[in-house]
């Protein structure tokens, strides 16, 4: 269930983000609201559920970015693993910890996507490193907005969570 919920939430967030950015800033800056969903999966989902859900979210980001398919899916699964490792090593707790991890994850995600795109694109169409500044702004804004995504995912988890039957049932 979790992967399906993550996919639908990512689709809704990506669409909402596109529509809202048309009214706020007109595209002068960007957001990546789907990525905190991956971070959430990394911190709270199981290995299989989380990896499949992250791949589904990455597929949505792939569709929205309209570039060659696969890169965003790969990076989403990589972000899932990064979040899992960070969660295990640093005990990320609360909204601030989640926002920090989302910001750092979004920044690394953006920089890696830039580097991978540069690796396979002819020099004349390769994205310039000057875009790192825009990616940093995107990461900052995503970090600021990520507590809302955290609240949404917690609420959805509460709705869809199933209690496992215990020994006394």
């Amino acid at each position, binding site marked *: 269930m979790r992967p399906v919920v993550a996919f639908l939430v990512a*689709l809704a967030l990506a669409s909402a983000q596109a529509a809202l950015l048309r009214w706020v800033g007109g595209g002068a800056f960007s957001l990546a609201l789907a990525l905190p969903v991956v971070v959430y999966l990394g911190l709270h989902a199981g290995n299989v559920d989380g990896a499949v859900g992250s791949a589904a979210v990455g597929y949505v980001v792939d569709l929205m970015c309209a570039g*060659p398919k696969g890169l965003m899916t790969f990076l989403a699964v990589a972000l899932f693993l990064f979040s899992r490792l960070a969660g295990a090593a640093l005990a990320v707790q609360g909204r601030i910890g989640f926002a920090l991890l989302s910001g750092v994850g979004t920044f690394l995600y953006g920089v890696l996507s830039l580097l991978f795109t540069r690796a396979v694109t002819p020099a004349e169409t390769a994205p310039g490193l000057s875009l790192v500044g825009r990616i940093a702004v995107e990461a900052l804004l995503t970090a600021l907005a990520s507590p809302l995504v955290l609240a949404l995912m917690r609420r959805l988890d509460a709705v869809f969570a199933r209690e496992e039957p215990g020994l006394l049932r």
Partner: protein
Amino acid sequence: VVGLLKRYRELILVAFLLVGPLGVYFAHAKHPSERSRLDRVILVATGPIEKGIGWAVRGALNGWYGYVALRHAHERAAELERRAELLELDRLELASVRAENDRLRALLSFAHVYPDRRVVGARVVGVRLDPKGLQLVTIDRGAADGLERMMPVLVAHGVVGRIHAVNPSTADVLLLSDRNSSVAVRVERSRARANVRGTGSPDLARLEYALRSDDMVEGDVLVTSGTDGVFPRGLPVGRIVGLKRAGQGLYQRADVKPIADVTKLEEVLVITSHERAEEAAPAQATVVPPASPGGLAPIPASATVKAR
């Protein structure tokens, strides 16, 4: 082997989800492919959400300016002041409607400059100027309105981009600022030829293949040359800034500031006819103005109008 597979099945699945998409990416990067049917179905689902949010935001803004702000004014002012506030609000609304009419008139007058081309008006409903991906905006017209890939998209004062992907009721426009976007241009003053390519930043493009011997100076206006088979000739594209002419080499380098500010787009025109109509035929400009909450300016009788 089965025991190992069972033991490490989670690890194998995660590794597959990591490596599989990467392989797909490198394959697609070398041989780009069209969107699959599943991709298109999913993207169609995003259209209503974007339109719905646009409708809600517009409604909330209308509600705010029409009611909440007025109630605030009621609390603050006496009767005459309240009336003044109402009149001021009306004046602002009229100014907003007039500004919208001016923009739509400009689009219509552009359509009349090219009477042998069919154009469709559209409203921008989504923006995706993502530094990681393509620079796209979504418009509220699609295949059902006759839009196809590669059709040029303009505003009254210049080039915006071209249609990148089409859904039944929406379309994605690849902006001039995208790094994959290249437009053949001429310097309006000296007629020197070059290309303008996006950089990924909304407010900056760069000039390519401009011969070092060509006559161009900072501030020169670049217009479409019509030789790229996408854009009609003579449309303003941008203005040269930061010209760098090295002591040697074949080409000179320059930055280009696009004429159309893609971060402030509201309505655009899409040229839907690829070829010129016959000279003898009467001018038939089919203008489909974008859906407007505030109403539209009167449209000349020579134009066939399909309002949504």
